């Protein structure tokens, strides 16, 4: 990268030099005169001829005015060539001065091309010198740069090989990426990272193998089931005791295989219950919605719910609330008071109506199967509601508390807060 910069720089300088020489050579070096100025000088002299003493130069040129006898009538400054012969010697320009169509005198224009040439030469020398200096500086700069970027890093590199050979891969190869050895040092890094990657790949392959086994075990069950079915048909159809015995053996072995696979496969799975309760984390804000859903007659004013994360099964919890509100509608048919508060790792939802409650003796049995309270005689029902609700709440690691409150039956649903060691 840096090398290219230097080359470009040198090329630029060379181009500048060539260009400046080109301009110096092709520029105004032919010594031509400004004819417009000369014309002005001549014309103004002609105009002022009658009173040449009062003539003033307006052109900035150096010239001398002679009459036909060679007498100097006007000169712009001393030191000019004042005779025709001298003028010819130094290549001065000589023009005729005319008045009324006849030649009345001569105008000698001073030729300063020698000085111009000298100035031009100096200019060239100056440019040359400057260019050489710049080039020298660039070269010197580059040498210093090469020393810094190649020689010095090389000295530093010497120790590396030994350490790497000794297996110490932790020592960082502190090299400037800019220098020539950058790629070299980098390849060490690559070596190390490649080793690491190989190890990771191995671990992944092991995992995949396990997964494959699990998958296969599942796949085996289907053929085993077919084998078993065929054997059963065979056992049923045959009259030969020996053959039946063989079939039975196949069936037993198939069952064994199936059991083994089931063991293998469902070792961690719990048996499914008839009413599975699958609690999960839900935000306490949802409780409000559940309560509102349950209270379809809008007997209760649902208070704000303190924010926390609960461990509950949304569907079952809804059923619990439905049950409680329905009971209240059925047995009490009054306004309902709902309170929600946090309590010792739980969120308590306490629902109380104004129906006066049940007799104190009935309270302990309310949650039991097929138990119905005294008021229930005239109302249809199976007496299962609170039993099931209690079961649900226990499945959710919460609880259900039923007791007589100040105004009526008070059912408190305790929902476990997530992560609160229950």
């Amino acid at each position, binding site marked *: 990268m840096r090398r290219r910069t230097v080359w470009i720089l040198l090329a630029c300088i060379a181009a500048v030099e060539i260009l400046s020489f080109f301009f110096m050579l092709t520029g105004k070096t032919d010594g031509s005169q400004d004819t417009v100025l000369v014309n002005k000088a001549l014309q103004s002299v002609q105009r002022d001829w009658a009173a040449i003493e009062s003539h003033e130069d307006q052109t900035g040129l150096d010239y001398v005015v002679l009459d036909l006898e060679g007498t100097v009538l006007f000169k712009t400054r001393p030191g000019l060539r004042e005779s025709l012969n001298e003028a010819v010697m130094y290549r001065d320009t000589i023009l005729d001065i005319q008045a009324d169509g006849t030649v009345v005198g001569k105008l000698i224009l001073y030729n300063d091309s020698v000085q111009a040439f000298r100035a031009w030469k100096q200019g060239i020398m100056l440019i040359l010198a400057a260019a050489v200096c710049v080039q020298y500086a660039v070269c010197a700069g580059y040498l210093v740069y090469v020393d810094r970027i190649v020689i010095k890093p090389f000295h530093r590199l010497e120790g590396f090989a030994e350490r790497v050979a000794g297996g110490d891969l932790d020592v960082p190869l*502190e090299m400037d990426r800019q220098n020539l050895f950058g790629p070299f040092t980098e390849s060490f890094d690559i070596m190390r990272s490649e080793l690491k990657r190989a190890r990771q790949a191995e671990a992944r392959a092991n995992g995949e193998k396990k997964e494959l086994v699990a998958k296969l075990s599942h796949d085996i069950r289907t053929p085993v089931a077919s084998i078993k079915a065929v054997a059963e048909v065979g056992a049923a159809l045959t009259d030969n005791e020996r053959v039946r015995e063989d079939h039975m053996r196949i069936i037993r072995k198939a069952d064994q295989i199936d059991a083994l696979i089931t063991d293998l496969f469902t070792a961690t799975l719990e048996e499914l219950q008839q009413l599975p309760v699958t609690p999960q984390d839900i935000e306490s804000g949802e409780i409000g919605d559940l309560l509102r859903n349950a209270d379809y007659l809008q007997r209760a004013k649902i208070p704000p719910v303190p924010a*926390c*994360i609960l461990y509950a099964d949304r569907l079952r919890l809804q059923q619990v609330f439905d049950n409680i509100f329905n009971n209240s509608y059925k047995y009490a048919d009054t306004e309902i008071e709902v309170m929600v508060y946090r309590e010792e790792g739980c969120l308590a939802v306490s629902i109380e109506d104004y129906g006066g409650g049940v007799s104190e003796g009935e309270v302990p049995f309310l949650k039991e199967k097929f138990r119905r309270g005294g008021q229930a005689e005239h109302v249809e029902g199976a007496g299962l509601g609170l039993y099931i609700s209690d079961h649900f709440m226990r499945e959710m690691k919460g609880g259900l508390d039923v007791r007589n409150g100040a105004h009526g039956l008070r059912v408190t649903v305790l929902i476990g807060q997530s992560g609160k060691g229950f």
Partner: protein
Amino acid sequence: MKNILLKTDHLSKSFSSGGTLQHVLKNIDLELYQGDYTVIMGASGAGKSTLLYALSGMDTPSLGTITFGDRVISELDQDGLAVFRRRHCGFVFQQIYLIDGMSVMDNVLAAGLLVNKDKRALLARARDLFAAVDISGETQKKFPTQISGGEAQRVGIVRALINDPEILFADEPTGALNSKTGLDVLDTLTRFNEQGQSVVMVTHDMRSARRGNRILYLKDGSILGECDLGRYEHGDRARHEKLSAFLGEMGW
């Protein structure tokens, strides 16, 4: 009784992924005390880092409150949190997160100048801290890609401490380092803690956890257990066994 620095009430954090809400932190009630070296442990995915970032105002909780002094920071908006972070919190990340485009010194000053306008005092503090973590003046001029991981993490600590924060939060500070350089970093943290700096560190590495005087074990987004180890002493066998027992109990 220790001074309470930070207090959470039913702190919860949920992310929605693929349409379903995932609750990473659940009902965490926690108090952090001044001068403590609190270590949050747990299996990966237990929500350690989420907790750390929520505590430090890097992220807002979904539910619950966080109180710092008498300010409820969980109610601040993003910019308010940014100002809170720059004044009161220092961060050390697992991936270190130095800005590659700035020199080591500038990485530190960029954080410092946000709070401290007195550049001379700031520079002095930066130099002191660099000296404390053994970063030479030459290294201070280097860029993060030019220094080793251990050095970078120590620079990270300096950056975290430049504004003299009330709490230093460290998220697996040794996670990306090898054992030797990791040890240096742990020693550095311990040293600052001994000087009174409150530290909260997340780790799943026993060797790092040992440094703390208070170990919290997080599981499935909740604090499962807590263990008070007392001040760290090098080579304290009993302390180590206590920690091992605690972790065993937690199912580590």
